[in-house]
């Protein structure tokens, strides 16, 4: 469904832009329907860059990203809108991804309006409150600003907002790293439940081996922007082939 073909993202740095830094180096992979792919790697290895490339928040320097066989670079306005609806992202810092001067009522209703999910204001209200209920969020949160609620609640709202659009793919960019341990488990459970119920493809980006093992079926290990190994969860954890992967897995066992 979503395919990366030899994607490279490089930045020029230095005083005259002579120095090239490769954040993502020749990465190719493919996710199919209802798949769970984990991107595993230490911080700074380019995981988040891959997530942002997939969202077209960044443009690849080389290679192409294809969605259902169509390069996202060459999509028309309406195709792009469809793509944005079907591919959604969860960021790691839930409290900063909402506009600090907008109440949640407004923030949440924005996607409903952009994609014309509701034909009337009453229906819009209904859609939103149904989802709020489904996620166990009290309606009073509507009249709050992002800085007035907890990180866990904000992340729930972020996931809820995404689910309203009924996407095909969700990219979760370290969705639990900024949260308390107790809340982490809740959010992961929620995410898992939502995936199973709606047959959504998940690309889960994390540095936490345990979390990736729990959430995903296939894993790609990334180091310095390159894919060093990929395989099923069992393969990676029980029979790691690459030196770096072995080191990661061993560190977990200790």
């Amino acid at each position: 469904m979503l395919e990366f073909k030899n994607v490279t993202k490089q930045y020029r740095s230095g005083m005259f832009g002579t120095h090239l830094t490769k954040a993502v180096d020749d990465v190719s992979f493919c996710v199919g329907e209802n798949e769970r792919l984990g991107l595993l790697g230490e911080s700074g290895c380019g995981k988040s860059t891959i997530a942002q490339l997939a969202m077209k928040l960044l443009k690849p320097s080389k290679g192409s990203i294809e969605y259902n066989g169509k390069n996202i670079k060459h999509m028309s306005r309406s195709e792009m809108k469809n793509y944005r609806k079907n591919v959604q992202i969860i960021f790691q810092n839930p409290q900063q991804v909402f506009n600090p001067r907008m109440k949640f009522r407004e923030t949440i209703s924005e996607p409903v309006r952009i994609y014309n999910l509701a034909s009337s204001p009453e229906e819009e209200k209904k859609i939103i409150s149904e989802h709020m209920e489904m996620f166990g969020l009290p309606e009073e949160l509507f009249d709050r600003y992002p800085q007035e609620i907890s990180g866990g609640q904000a992340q729930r709202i972020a996931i809820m907002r995404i689910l309203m659009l009924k996407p095909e793919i969700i990219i979760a960019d370290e969705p639990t790293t900024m949260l308390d341990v107790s809340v982490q488990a809740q959010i992961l459970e929620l995410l898992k439940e939502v995936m199973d119920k709606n047959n959504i493809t998940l690309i889960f980006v994390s540095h936490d081996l345990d979390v990736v093992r729990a959430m995903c079926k296939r894993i790609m290990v990334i180091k310095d922007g390159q894919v060093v190994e990929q395989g099923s969860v069992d393969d990676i954890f029980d029979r790691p082939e690459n030196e770096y992967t072995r080191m990661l897995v061993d560190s977990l066992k200790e």
Partner: protein
Amino acid sequence: MKKRRITKKIIKRVILFFIAMFVLSVVVFFLARLAPGDPLQAFYGEALDTMDESQIEAARQRLGLDDNLFVQYFKWLGGALHGDFGLSLKYKMKVQNVVNPLIGNTLGLGITAYCVVFALAIVLATVAALHEDDWLDKIICKVGTATYYIPSFWLGVVLVLIFSVNLGWFPSSGAYDVGKQGDIGNRIQHMILPLIVMIASHFWYYAYMIRNKLLDEFRKDYVLLAKAKGLTRRQIVWKHCLRNVAPTIVSIMAIAIPHVISGTVVVEAVFGYPGIGNLAVESAKYHDYNMLMMTVLLTGAFVFIASFVAQTVNEEIDPRMKVTKEIRW
């Protein structure tokens, strides 16, 4: 409940205003008299040299300059509270009568310049921020910086040289031609050159501030999410970023009021434009105490009112200010 809070707030600000004006008047009154020089020089000019001791003493008494400083201040205060701000030593008439016809000139020039400056600044800042690091942004930034650093007295003289002396399109000085006091077209013609200088020397300072604020805003995470949500660039800028930067722009606009007003001083001097700025400088030079008090208090009152208005507007558009206030109390 809400209404009561607003009236309470307004009363509080009015009281604050009077306290501030009182303090300002005290400071200006005593500072002006600490400066060396003789106010009689302004009143009598050359004639002072031919007057003898007793005549000078009598003159001092007549003008109320022989009293103790505190007595002088309270005499002035008493008059001011009744709307009488005393006699101008230089013009030998009531201060209000000198100031009144000039206020309109300065306000007209200042307010027009202020509006154009901010309209231009906001538009240019948004365009530049949207095209960050593009050729368009680079051109705007470079031209803006260059204009900002041209000294306004020099620019004024050059403009006069080009447009009045050589081309003869605009008059070089004054606010209107003799006998054409009521002719608006004539006044506008006189205002154009001073206006250009005012705008050129002010707009970039604010445009650059607003541009940077916008760029800060563009780098925030919620913009990424808004983009991922599927909002277009224009929607993000209008609905999210500009709205969030608006309180900052309002604060900048409030702080800008004294800055732009002080800008009129130089321009009025270069173009011989009859206004308050020029008057204030002259009154300080000639020890025209009552006139100085009047001009300073006028500008002071203007600045205070402007900042109070800005604060109120700010609280209304930025919900966070109210929240933090509730916590504090």
